[in-house]
């Protein structure tokens, strides 16, 4: 026991030494502005690697164009291992030790919320990149938190617009059993039922996230005999679901509306077994002809010899937005950053976006189209960009949803 405690002491000492030396080298340089970035790099590399490439490209571009009012932009990036508690540790390190001007990033909704709550408590500016939950800007929104990616509600509204045009009357849903899946289904149901009161919801399946037992789920859906299916599965679960569904003929003569499936992250994994004719949100990088996107695509491909995923665009635009906010505020004071961010407009690969003053949501949109298979690969066709600003509820509704600061 005694020896144990001596060891403890020695370890504490060693640990301290390391941390202190870190603190010295990490001292604020006057000609730098730091952003602290947190994401689930080790848990979700398929999504976060392209994301990292995206923001690294943005940092290069910002600094090549003169930085933030002449100061060099530095991004310090930390892994959260997919756990909210570790994200908080990383946030503390970035704020207390590295002295970053703002926090950004996060992928999973619960981690986004954890960091947003941290930001509120410690009064730090936080730009959430990817979490989709509506709560982060509405029910649990706070003045320090802004969000870039189109929310669950916005993507649901975009899909409902198309779904309402379908003749289908009997609908079934399948979604991973966690917050994102649950809220995607409930918003979609609510919006579609409002537009089409004649619709019946005949079945719902809730396989656990990452552990779908696809055969029984597909069979259960087929047994309900719906005219159309809403799918919220993604990643590995989507692969299993689509494969079983194809083999068992689930998608034959049925319409499918599907969240996120058009994103290269998910569609490419399906190769030639990608479903055809699904109505999806996504990112058809091969099909976007605007000059803003062409410039981004060229820069990205020149640097990485790879095509961008949606994560690349999100990472890129997160840092571009952060830089624009820092430049406009010309200060690292969180209150001034908030003032600068509210209502700021800036270009993006998808066209101009604005961070709304009312709920701190950006108006970045998404592409809606249909899936198809071309040259043995899944693609999106007939895709149209939907502006985020057109798919948000009225200001009066938002004000009711969001707590007063």
């Amino acid at each position, binding site marked *: *026991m*005694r020896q*144990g*405690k001596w*060891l*403890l*002491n020695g*370890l*504490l000492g060693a*640990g*301290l030494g*390391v*941390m*202190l030396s870190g603190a010295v080298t990490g001292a604020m340089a006057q000609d730098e502005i730091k952003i602290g970035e947190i994401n689930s*790099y*080790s848990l979700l*590399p*398929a999504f976060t690697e392209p994301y990292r490439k995206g923001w690294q490209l943005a940092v290069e571009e910002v600094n090549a164009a003169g930085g933030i009012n002449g100061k060099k932009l530095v991004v310090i990036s930390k*892994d*959260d*291992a997919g756990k*909210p*508690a570790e994200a*908080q*540790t990383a946030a*503390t390190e970035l704020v*207390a*030790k590295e002295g970053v001007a703002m926090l950004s990033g996060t992928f999973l*909704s*619960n981690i986004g*919320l*954890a960091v947003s709550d*941290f930001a509120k*408590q410690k009064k730090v500016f936080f730009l959430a990149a990817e979490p989709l939950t509506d*709560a982060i800007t509405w029910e649990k929104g706070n003045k320090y938190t802004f969000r870039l990616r189109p929310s669950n509600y916005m993507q649901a509204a975009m899909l409902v617009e198309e779904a309402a045009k379908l003749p289908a009357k009997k609908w079934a849903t399948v979604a991973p*059993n*966690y*917050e994102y899946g649950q809220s995607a289904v409930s918003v979609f149901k609510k919006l579609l039922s409002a537009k089409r009161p004649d619709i019946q919801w005949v079945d719902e*399946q*809730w396989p*656990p996230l990452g*552990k779908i*037992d*696809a*055969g*029984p789920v597909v*069979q*259960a859906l087929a*047994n309900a005999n719906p005219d159309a299916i809403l799918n919220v599965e993604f*990643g*590995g679960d989507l*692969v*299993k679901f689509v494969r*079983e569904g194809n*083999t*068992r*003929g689930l998608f034959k003569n049925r319409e499918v509306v599907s969240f996120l499936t058009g994103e290269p992250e998910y569609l490419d*994994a*399906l190769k030639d*077994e990608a479903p055809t004719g699904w109505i999806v949100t996504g990112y058809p990088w091969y099909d976007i002809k605007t000059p803003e996107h062409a410039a981004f695509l060229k820069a990205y491909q020149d640097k990485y010899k790879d095509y961008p995923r949606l994560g690349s665009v999100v990472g890129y635009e997160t840092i571009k937005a952060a830089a624009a906010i820092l430049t406009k505020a010309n200060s690292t004071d969180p209150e001034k950053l908030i003032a600068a961010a509210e209502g700021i407009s800036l270009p993006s690969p998808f066209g101009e976006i604005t961070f709304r003053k009312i709920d701190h949501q950006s108006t970045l949109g998404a592409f809606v189209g249909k899936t198809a298979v071309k040259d043995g690969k899944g693609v999106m066709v007939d895709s149209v960009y939907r502006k985020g600003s057109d798919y948000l509820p009225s200001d009066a509704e938002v004000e009711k949803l969001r707590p007063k600061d």
Partner: protein
Amino acid sequence: MAFYIVQFLTGLASAASLFLVASGLSIIFGVTRIVNFAHGAFYMLGAYLAYTLTERLSGALGFWGGIVAAALAVAAFGVLIEMILLRRIYRSPELFQLLATFGLTLMIEDIVVLIWGPDDLLGRRAPGFRGAVDFFGQQIPTYDLFLIVLSPIVLGLLWLLFRRTRWGVLVRAATQDRDMVAALGVNQKWLFTSVFALGVFLAALGGALQIPRDAANHAMDLNIIVDVFVVVVIGGLGSIIGAFVAAVLVSELNAFGILIFPKISIILVFLVMAVVLIVRPWGLFGKPEAPARKTPGLTVRPWRPLSGNERLAMIGVLVVAAALPLISGSYVLTVASEIAIFVIFAASLHFLMSVGGLASFGHAAYFGLGAYGVAFLAKMAGMPMIVCLLIGPLLGLLGAAVFGFFVVQLSGVYFAMLTLAFAQIVWSIAFQWVGVTGGDNGILGVWPAAWAGGAANFYWLSLGIAVLVVAALRIMVFSPFGYALRATRDSALRSEAIGIDGKRIQWTAFVIAGTAAGIGGALFAFLKGSVFPDSVGISLSVDALVMVLLGGVETVSGAIVGAIVYKALNIWLVSYTDFSKLVLGAVIVLIVVAMPKGIVGTIETLQTRRARPAKATILASQAETAE
């Protein structure tokens, strides 16, 4: 009607993949008693390797050849691991091998991403089994039919192997009584190695056969490992037929369960396991474990309270620890607070494992209940922090009292798995009951009161509570209650004979450990300002186990060092390296090899040997005669 038949067949196909992996685990555990946490990792390696091979080799022969070759290659890798790593630690304390295989799993997870990249890899469909057959308007994939036929064949082959070969006789003998087999002159080394190879082969084959249904991905291991353990335990450890029946049972209940309760999948296997273990404490086909021949207490240096000088030294250490805020900033203090909280958590599990001899795989349940207790009190009742800290852990106490009553009826791995089942039930309630717990979005805004809001104050608070909890646990170890608990651990029969009510003592110990964990959880909620279902999750339970084993299970307070080392290392690696799991896993494996009794255990052994060589020999010889 046709639908129900097809749904039944679909369930059988799901059972087939589960059975292949589970049978391997069951064989390995039955013979070597290794809780092989890396079994999922071998399954994943099988899938990745099969993907690579089936993409390279063309034709039907290439596909099936690739599947088998992948399984064989992974089995060879398993042999290597067994010979290099596991052979060194068969004589270590119980469950220590879990630590080695845990480290291995961490390493393999990162290595897979390094070799095959982060993207999911979609393999070929099986030649000849691409389509589906029509059954009264329902489609049955031919590959499902293939799997349905394959698994009874594998079961039959294994049965023949175990019943009709000399090797099989030895394996069965070793499953029943491996000391006797060794005494009869069988070379255990090669028996263990060959069993391990067969088990890994089955795991990798199970993975490889997923190629036509799933995409190879780097989360496959963790997605299957717990379910497979559950299947093995439901079936009864070491029973292949049990594993088969359990796999079918679980898969069919899931296939039909989702028709009525679509959300049942998330918890189904654990519910089944809890029910089976309460009704049949050794699983469906298992036999009661033979009483342990070795008395665990005898291999250890006898425990004793700290001497006067040692107490002074402790106080010195504490003064140094308390002076930390004078020299460091708020980040270091936040990390130090977190470490102090995990010292509480690990010490509470250590109390149960070392003193009580009860290894819990679900200790996070009580940590998490303490955290949720605080969150409910703070957010719903608006209680001040002090009240929350005092009352919140009572939820952990309550949970431990209820679940403890059931779990102490069991022992060994069955005890461990029932604690896991209860922990998962708590987790799924936290996860699913969105209206109360917020689901996986958690409960936010549980920040400490102003007086404890500063990093230094919170650190002193955590440190103070950690010291109190650890001191209280130590006092209990050396109290009459502690002696009774140790007596029950060392010999249930003898302690019963002198009038100790073993179950009652163990139940009390379980409640004490659960309450202490709840205290840690309560502090954790305030440290993070929020509570998520994560804090009830399996990975946290595993973390606690790792901390205890790392420190040394045969020591009085080794978990403290284990917690500090593991937590500090983890936080530091996640922050400073891209491949934190690879490095952390490697460090754990190195510690396992270099310190087979855990950090504190090994240091104590060395010290004893150096200080009192004569006395130690006498002790050892006494121990031998006692056996």
